[in-house]
């Protein structure tokens, strides 16, 4: 394939490799970030931690 890209094939392939690496890096970073956040939130929830909105609901239920 690179033969059909002519004498500057190395530049073309390097440009596409850089673009793929940057996009892959973004996707992996966002996916790992989400996995980490969900794991920590789940750990906190299993230890009994709640969000502010959940506390409001719990307080309302107590009042009822």
């Amino acid at each position, binding site marked *: 394939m690179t033969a059909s890209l002519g004498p500057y094939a190395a530049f073309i392939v390097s*440009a596409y490799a850089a673009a793929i690496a940057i*996009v892959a890096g*973004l996707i992996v970073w*966002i996916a790992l970030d989400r996995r980490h956040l969900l794991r920590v939130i789940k750990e*906190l929830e299993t230890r009994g931690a*709640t969000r*502010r909105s959940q506390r409001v609901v719990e307080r309302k239920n107590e009042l009822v």
Partner: protein
Amino acid sequence: MNLIEWANPSRFLALSARVLAWLIPATLLVFAAAGVQAYLAPDDYQQGATVKIMFIHVPAAWLGIFAWVLMSAAALGTLVWRHPLADVAAKAAAPIGAAFTLMCLLTGSLWGRPMWGTYWVWDARLTSVLVLFLMYLGVIALWQTIEDPTRAARIAAVFTLVGAINIPIIKFSVDWWNTLHQSASVLRLDGSTIHVSIRVPLLAMIAAFTLLFLTLQIAAMRNEILRRRLRTMLMLQADAASGP
């Protein structure tokens, strides 16, 4: 239901999950179609096969600028309406915009060496895009160093709006100054100067990259909302631990 109610973070999480379920396959499909078109596109009569670098360089440049425009709109949302989802959108867009600007600089450099005989020259277009990249790093640093997200959002919003002055400079730099970089050839009042056989794959790649940006932006915004929830939970837990 008005727009502000739709912008509620919890409602955004529910709505964005449904949007992503469509956006991800749409992005993949458009990338597949655009990729085939770019592969089959003929060589340029002057630049040869190096014109294929344009299919990633121009979309990256477009998204580097678009992300800053999006951040500027979000900055207005932060400063005028003080809406937390505007803060989330601005923070999520910064690293994605930085990544596409870096892609623009790298691919441009790799295109410049065979065509201009140099990887880099301090002309107005290249320098203003480098400034944009440095501004992205600056705004990311602001978000990372200021602990209170509301205060960070306001300072980052002011920085973003001041930095927006660079956007028209980037766009018109090739008209205002004598640059090695070519003048506009896609968006022109008198029509594009690119032959249709190359313009169609280019526009397809721009569409594919834009869909990719939207997918990444929504996913990053969902992460940021989770990060804020986690922060709130940790603060409430610390409050509970410190006494009644």
